[in-house]
């Protein structure tokens, strides 16, 4: 820039021709020209612009026309931002800023830029402040790089968090499945011990236990399609009567769509199994033309009713002794619905009615 400065017609500026410049001004400009670091010098009543080679790229397209122009013309786009600092320097207090953001249009379009710079007051031989030196480094690249690193870190952190959440959900699911498995095994154990307790001999006990475990397994098949959480009453009912469904007219199944929580599904499946095996021995399913009408309904807020009515079977007699089947259907299964149930041994056909609730008394057990 030394040649450009010497060649410039300074008579058009308040500084006047170079030959008239005082020593302090010449010395300052000579130092600036020989310095490798970007420096601009704003001097005189209009803060006329003088800058070195290093400062050129900072001016961008403006470098070609900035020499000799007033500060306010060169930096018209950021003047509002820098004015307080210019005034501070001109009042004698140096300015030091790190990574100051400025939106510039130096290349014809708005750019976000960051600057680390100092404004050092420059005095004449009498000590009056005549201008200031702007020693500057553009830090846009390092600020953007740091910002990029922060963003990348944030992104990685989010990804790690997502993975941790996925692993946590998997652990919860595994615990839940393990718990349901243990529960199923406990139910199988109860079914086996109840079968042993009530059967006349081990062979009968084994047959009863196998049939009950098979009934539980069929209900589990229905539950597996919903991750063991719930089933539909109709699906559980149809799965439970399937082994006895030898002709279309055997069963009449009717009821609204009702979602049944897993343990209630298993309980209802066991009840239907006991009713069906009893019917095969003594009731409507023991004769060619016998049939069973199964229906259920919902009422009130959470009310649920279920009934099993046998028709066309042999005359019914109440059993002399109540075994596991009647205890299960009359006492155990209604407890799953916080309700009551009754077996009515009417001569025309056995009727089983259950009335209870589908309330939130038995929530899912995913917690702990």
């Amino acid at each position, binding site marked *: 820039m030394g040649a450009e400065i010497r060649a410039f017609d300074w008579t058009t500026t308040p500084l006047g021709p170079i030959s008239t410049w005082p020593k302090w001004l010449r010395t300052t400009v000579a130092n600036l020209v020989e310095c490798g670091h970007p420096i601009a010098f704003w001097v005189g009543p209009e803060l006329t612009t003088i800058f070195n080679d290093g400062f050129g790229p900072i001016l961008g397209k403006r470098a070609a026309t900035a020499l000799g122009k007033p500060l306010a013309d060169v930096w018209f786009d950021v003047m509002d931002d820098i004015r307080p600092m210019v005034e501070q320097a001109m009042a004698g207090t140096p300015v030091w800023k790190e990574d100051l953001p400025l939106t510039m249009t130096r290349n014809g379009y708005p750019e976000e830029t960051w600057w680390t710079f100092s404004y050092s007051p420059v005095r004449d031989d009498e000590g009056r402040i005549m201008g200031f030196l702007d020693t500057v480094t553009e830090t846009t690249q390092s600020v953007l790089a740091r910002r990029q690193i922060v963003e990348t870190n944030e992104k990685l952190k989010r990804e790690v968090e997502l993975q941790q959440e996925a692993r946590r959900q998997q652990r919860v699911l595994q*615990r839940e499945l*393990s*718990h349901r*498995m*243990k*529960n199923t*095994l*406990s*139910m*199988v*154990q*109860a*079914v086996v*011990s*109840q079968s042993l*307790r009530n059967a006349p001999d081990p062979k009968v006990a084994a047959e009863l236990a196998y049939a009950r475990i098979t009934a539980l397994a069929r209900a589990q098949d229905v539950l597996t399609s919903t991750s063991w959480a719930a089933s539909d009453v109709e699906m559980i009912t149809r799965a439970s009567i399937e082994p006895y469904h030898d002709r279309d007219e055997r069963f009449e199944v009717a009821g609204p769509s009702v979602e049944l929580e897993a*343990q209630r599904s298993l*309980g209802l499946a*066991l009840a239907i199994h006991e009713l069906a095996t009893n019917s095969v021995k003594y009731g409507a399913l023991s004769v060619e033309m016998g049939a069973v009408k199964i229906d259920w309904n919902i009422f009130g807020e959470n009310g649920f009713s279920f009934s099993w009515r046998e028709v066309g079977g042999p005359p019914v007699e109440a059993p002399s002794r109540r075994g596991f089947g009647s*205890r*299960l259907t009359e*006492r*155990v*299964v209604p*407890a*799953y619905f916080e309700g009551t149930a009754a077996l009515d041994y009417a001569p025309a056909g056995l009727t089983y009615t259950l009335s209870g609730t589908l309330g*939130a*008394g*038995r*929530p899912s*057990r995913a917690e*702990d």
Partner: protein
Amino acid sequence: MSKTFDRRRIAILVVEDEPLLLMDAMDMIEDAGFTVYGAGNADEALRLLESRNDIRVLFTDVDMPGSMDGLKLAHAVKDRWPPVHIIVASGHVNVARKELPENGVFFAKPYPPSSIICALDGIAERIVN
């Protein structure tokens, strides 16, 4: 094992929200000769403890719906009825063990029935002697 006590005089309170398991556990304990009461949740269990003074053992499941699970119930019973012995059963083996009240006994579910009866006999021996 020769018993020096009458099992009928020892009442066990079984708490289990699974009705089938509750019936089976009660049958098992009753068959062994103990007196047995059943409750489907912690609130029912506390009401029974308040109305009966013969209950010497609480045998509870852990996972139960309602305001109190089996572990909370066990601690509440230990505080209010210190002489009542505590047996806790759960499918969640690791969760339950470390949260038992003092002198509580833990069984993993499903459990062999004979081990429960054996534990009840041990408790009965201590109560009688």
